[in-house]
């Protein structure tokens, strides 16, 4: 990669991150900390830029720069106040934070070396996601006809469109761009986990738990391999963290729900499993409707506002390309019924899940052991059992697991092929969110952190 290419690539990332930051702080003024806003910026920005590329294509730069200018103008009004608040944050940097940063830098270096060796990514990375990106970039206006020739043409285009957008910045389809992008998003998952736990719990757990995510080799490898599974995992984490934050900040009608809706929609725009996530999250948010109908509907209304654009784009893509989903297309009523009533399938899938819980991350040592020890020693915060955000998060994860179980139950593919080629990836979708929810449970109190939270508000 020449310095010129690196420069254009950096410009593409800068615009993406700034767009994400401005949207985050403007949608949720005074409700989200500056740290979390910056942590969320790459994933929110990638969603926005991907949609802009998909909808506008040629005038992409005009739309991006116009939007950036407008958002910057609006944000300028808040800048002074933000700076003043930030200047009060002259707190010490804990040694754990330094350690986390050092490990993150090490992992980043290793990831970039890996991307350099295999710039096109692993099998699904090039055969699906980068193949789609190449059609978007190379086939011009006829991409819609030719993308049907690829493997899984029905897969949503968040990642391919974001990669093709970077190639537009560079001026040619440099394969490393996609790898650098997915590494950035993978590491964003770590920073979102740290920032959201820092905001919701306290300092020490917010540095410890992200270390476990960094120490999950398969999570990192999926990102380096340019699979869409890691971005999906990060969107799921972002949504659950935002839901918890919403319940903490303003239980009745906080605008954080708009951002949560957007990240949920982006999950659907990333992978078909994200569409399951949209359905599950919507149901989880609507669950309290019988107890508190007005509040729940207001909450859902805000969520739906954020969800609308990415979901509409996903539906438009599905209708425009009209490619059948291989799993759904091959479903037959009689065969499905036979599978649903076959007890052996339940046992086989449950066994595979149990095995997957142990091995999904390709951990040399399973992080569940120290996590359980942490909860045992520090205790569980029982107040969480009554916290709407945490309960919604747990409900979503449980429902996602059940949905994945259901997909395996009725899959037209042989289980002995389908499970080994996909289960670990599906479990990694939920792994960062599980870490977040467990981190929320740990009862470690450092009261001094609370005062810092109040000071670190962006606008």
């Amino acid at each position, binding site marked *: 990669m020449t310095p010129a290419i690196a420069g254009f690539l950096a410009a593409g990332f800068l615009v993406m991150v700034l767009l994400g930051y401005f949207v985050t702080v403007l949608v949720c003024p005074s409700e989200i900390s500056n740290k979390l806003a910056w942590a969320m910026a790459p994933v929110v920005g990638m969603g926005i830029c991907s949609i802009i590329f998909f909808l506008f294509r040629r005038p992409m730069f005009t739309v991006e720069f116009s939007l950036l200018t407008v958002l910057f103008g609006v944000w300028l009004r808040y800048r002074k106040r933000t700076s003043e608040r930030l200047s009060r944050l002259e707190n010490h940097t804990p040694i754990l934070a330094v350690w986390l940063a050092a490990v993150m830098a090490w992992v980043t270096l290793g990831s970039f070396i890996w991307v350099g060796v295999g710039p096109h990514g692993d099998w699904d990375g090039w055969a699906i996601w980068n*193949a789609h990106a190449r059609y978007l970039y190379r086939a011009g206006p006829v991409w819609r006809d030719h993308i049907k020739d690829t493997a899984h043409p029905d897969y949503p285009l968040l990642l391919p469109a974001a990669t093709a957008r970077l190639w537009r910045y560079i001026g040619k389809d440099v394969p490393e761009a996609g790898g650098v992008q997915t590494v950035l998003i993978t590491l964003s998952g770590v920073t979102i986990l740290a920032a959201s736990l820092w905001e919701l719990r306290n300092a020490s757990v917010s540095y410890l738990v992200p*270390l476990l995510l960094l120490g999950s080799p398969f999570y990192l490898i999926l990102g380096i391999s340019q699979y869409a599974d890691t971005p999906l995992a990060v969107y799921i984490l972002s949504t659950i963290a935002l839901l918890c934050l919403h319940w903490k900040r303003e239980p009745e009608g906080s605008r954080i729900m708009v951002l949560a809706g957007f990240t949920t929609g982006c999950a659907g725009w990333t992978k078909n499993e994200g569409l399951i996530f949209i359905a599950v999250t919507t149901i989880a948010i609507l669950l309290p409707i019988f107890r508190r109908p007005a509040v729940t509907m207001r909450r859902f209304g805000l969520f739906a506002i954020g969800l609308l654009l990415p979901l509409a784009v996903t539906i438009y893509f599905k209708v425009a390309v009209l490619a059948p989903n291989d799993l759904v297309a091959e479903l037959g009523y009689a065969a499905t019924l036979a599978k649903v009533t076959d007890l052996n399938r339940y046992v086989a899938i449950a066994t595979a899940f149990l095995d997957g819980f142990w091995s999904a991350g390709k951990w040399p040592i399973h992080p569940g052991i120290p996590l359980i020890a942490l909860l045992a020693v520090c205790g569980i915060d029982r107040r969480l059992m009554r916290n709407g955000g945490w309960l919604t998060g747990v409900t979503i994860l449980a429902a996602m697991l059940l949905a994945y179980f259901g997909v395996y139950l009725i899959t037209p593919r042989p289980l002995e092929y389908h499970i080994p080629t996909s289960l670990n990836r599906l479990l990694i979708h939920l792994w960062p969110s599980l870490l977040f929810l467990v981190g929320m449970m740990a009862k470690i109190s450092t009261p001094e952190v609370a005062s810092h939270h109040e000071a670190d508000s962006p606008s």
Partner: protein
Amino acid sequence: MLQTKLGIPALTIYKPNGTVVPEQEMKRSALKSAVQIGLIAVACWNVVGFTSMVLKLPSRGVHHIVGWEKAWEPIHLWLKGVGYDVGDIGYVTARSLRGEPPSEIENVNRAELYYVVIPLNLVQNRSDTPYLLGDFTAGRPTELPPGLVEISEPGNGLVLLRNTLIR
């Protein structure tokens, strides 16, 4: 207490406000610290696992796609020169020309080449495309079937063939 028997005063720790930290609390605090150190150690050990994977990576040139990209480049330039940018391109091997089923390695090669030639659409078992990509990396055919003419052979195993039966 052993300390009392030996005449050693017990270690006393004070909080910042001057009050004494109870022994029970000290033990609990030490246990918490130990667990946290253990958690860091596990995370770091797993990062070491990731690092060892990075250290075992082959060099960039070994990556199949990178190799195919280089091999495809001269043929791509030739096709670009004649204005054949988008459309179908056939895929043949020495085995397929003999009418034999593809080998496992040929299936992998075809999938990789499919990605490399985008936006051209690499199709197998079709004879109605104006150009065909010959993957002769596993061996050249003794002779080409009638109608197929070799038009570009960069010497890396890939050969561009023209189907003279298609106008």
